[in-house]
């Protein structure tokens, strides 16, 4: 019996020919990524207590993105600790306020198909878009990795999420994610490694693939994998990394999936997820008319260059509605600079968007742009858990960048296709 992509990646890291679901294995870690919030401020005391040094500074990527820029003395201190730790531990790959970790990591050329990586953040599943086995761990777990270069893993079952057909105009990866959350339920993948397969996935660009893998976290998946192909290696080459070999990293024809779900992309409508769960997703039209105080384009999930392009398509030549504010926090400096060069930023700002610092911003309620009591927000982020973006009684609707931009213009939730020329 053949192996799934997940099983091949884990077997390689475990130094084995094969692994099977349910086994607990010890694996070597190729790369450890952490950020300011879960990183040095929590890990340094553990390393000190153990009297241990990091196993390999060259395999560590550190990103300050959660508490940037500092808004008070406490967040400033968190950032200061992060910088000091990077210096003291000779971490070359330290990205200070230049983007969100899951976006900076591939853009910095750190990922390569076949890698086994851990990240100190739940959306570390994003690395799966590059054919890496990558998942999130907590700080203590990460400290263990930093000291030993190893970790353990229960080999997950694999679930295939197979998408064929073509997406309609105004429909994107984020809509796929939300539809999957509604279909499988929050955490519905229950620890499985999900693998996005099918003719549609092969046609998607890397940023859309990253969005898919990113929200595997909301499905409760252990990893969100996509078999690497030419699109992957070209993208990684352009990022200045070593793309390695894509060919070995695909599931065998006779590999065993615990489930295969098939979907037709052509019939997918723009989605909106009502508070307080991504699983409350339904076609945008069913929430039509919900008045919006704040529209937020941000996060690793929804503010990459491709996401900014989607928003600009809707906003070009239009104005944000009176009584509604549109905040845009680009995912990385590189995305922001490219959006500047290609005229996207001018379209966003021309429509009245307020540009926010690069970083996690309001996504997890740490940075600027949080919500007051009872305020209603539509957001391109990944989670709308109660109180995550600000006050307990605030309400967050999740949607694609198209739909967030459409709501900003209309002042209420709409189907974004109303704002896009047919084509």
């Amino acid at each position, binding site marked *: 019996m053949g192996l799934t992509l997940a099983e091949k990646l884990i077997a390689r890291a475990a130094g084995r020919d094969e692994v099977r679901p349910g086994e607990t294995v010890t694996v070597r870690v190729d790369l450890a990524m952490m950020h300011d919030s879960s990183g040095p401020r929590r890990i340094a005391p553990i390393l000190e207590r153990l009297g241990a040094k990091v196993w390999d500074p060259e395999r560590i990527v550190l990103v300050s993105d959660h508490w940037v820029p500092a808004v008070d003395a406490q967040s400033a201190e968190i950032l200061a600790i992060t910088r000091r730790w990077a210096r003291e531990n000779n971490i070359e790959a330290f990205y200070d306020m230049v983007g969100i970790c899951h976006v900076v990591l591939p853009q910095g050329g750190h990922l390569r198909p076949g890698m086994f990586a851990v990240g100190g953040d*739940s959306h570390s599943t994003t690395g799966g878009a590059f054919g890496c086995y990558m*998942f*999130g761990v907590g700080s*203590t*777990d990460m400290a263990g990795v930093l*000291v030993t270069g190893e970790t353990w893993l229960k080999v997950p079952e694999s679930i295939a999420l197979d998408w064929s057909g073509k997406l309609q105009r105004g429909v994107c990866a984020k809509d796929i994610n939300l539809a999957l959350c509604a279909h499988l339920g929050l*955490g519905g993948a229950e620890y499985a490694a999900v693998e996005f397969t099918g003719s549609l996935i092969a046609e998607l660009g890397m940023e859309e693939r990253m969005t898919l893998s990113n929200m595997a976290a909301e499905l409760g998946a252990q990893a969100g994998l996509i078999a690497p192909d030419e699109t992957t290696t070209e993208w990684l080459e352009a990022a200045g990394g070593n793309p390695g070999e894509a060919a070995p990293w695909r599931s065998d024809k006779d590999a065993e999936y615990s489930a295969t779900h098939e979907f037709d992309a052509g019939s997918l409508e723009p989605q909106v997820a009502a508070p307080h769960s991504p699983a409350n997703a339904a076609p945008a039209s069913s929430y039509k008319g919900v008045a919006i105080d704040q529209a937020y384009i941000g996060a690793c999930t929804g503010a990459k260059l491709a996401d900014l392009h989607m928003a600009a398509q809707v906003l070009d030549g239009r104005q944000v509605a009176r009584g509604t504010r549109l905040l845009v926090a680009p995912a990385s400096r590189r995305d922001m600079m490219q959006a500047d060069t290609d005229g996207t930023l001018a379209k966003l700002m021309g429509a009245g968007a307020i540009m926010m610092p690069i970083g996690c911003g309001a996504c997890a309620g740490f940075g600027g742009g949080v919500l007051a009591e009872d305020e209603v927000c539509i957001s391109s982020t990944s*989670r709308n*858990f109660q109180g995550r973006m600000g006050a307990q009684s605030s309400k967050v609707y999740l949607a694609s960048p198209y739909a967030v931009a459409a709501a900003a213009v209309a002042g209420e939730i709409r189907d974004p296709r109303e704002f896009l020329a047919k084509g």
Partner: protein
Amino acid sequence: MTGSEGAAWVFGDNIDTDQLAPGGTLKGGVEEGASQCLRAVNPDFAGQVRKGDFVVGGRNFGIGSSREQAAQALCHLGVAAVIAPSFGGIFYRNALNFGLLALVCAEAGKISQGDRLTADPETGEVRNLSRGEVYDCEPLPAHLLEIVSAGGLVPYLERKLR
């Protein structure tokens, strides 16, 4: 290693990490975080839970972010074990890393608020003294049991590295 007796605090499906460790408390220390733990679903919990009590969850207990403050808060409040039919993958690891026993128990739904329980991490047996019932949980692999018995990953590594 049969644990001692404690009361069950029962919660529903999909208890997420923002409910266990609200974002607004993450800048501060564990005391502040623990005092707000689960306030959105049961405002009495953090104030009234006793050392040795049990948290009983529904499916996907601890789904969401990697913030280990979610598990740390329960430890700080003295919770003896979390029992649920399934866990958020990262929370599960974090719990064991803090020495907090997390037991996958298909029958967790039979437990009611206030039931008196004991849990044996080695056999994976949960006894419901109030109902005279015994539930089987998935046993922990030996090396994870070792981490939990050591009191968490840090003391475990401390021992190993010495």
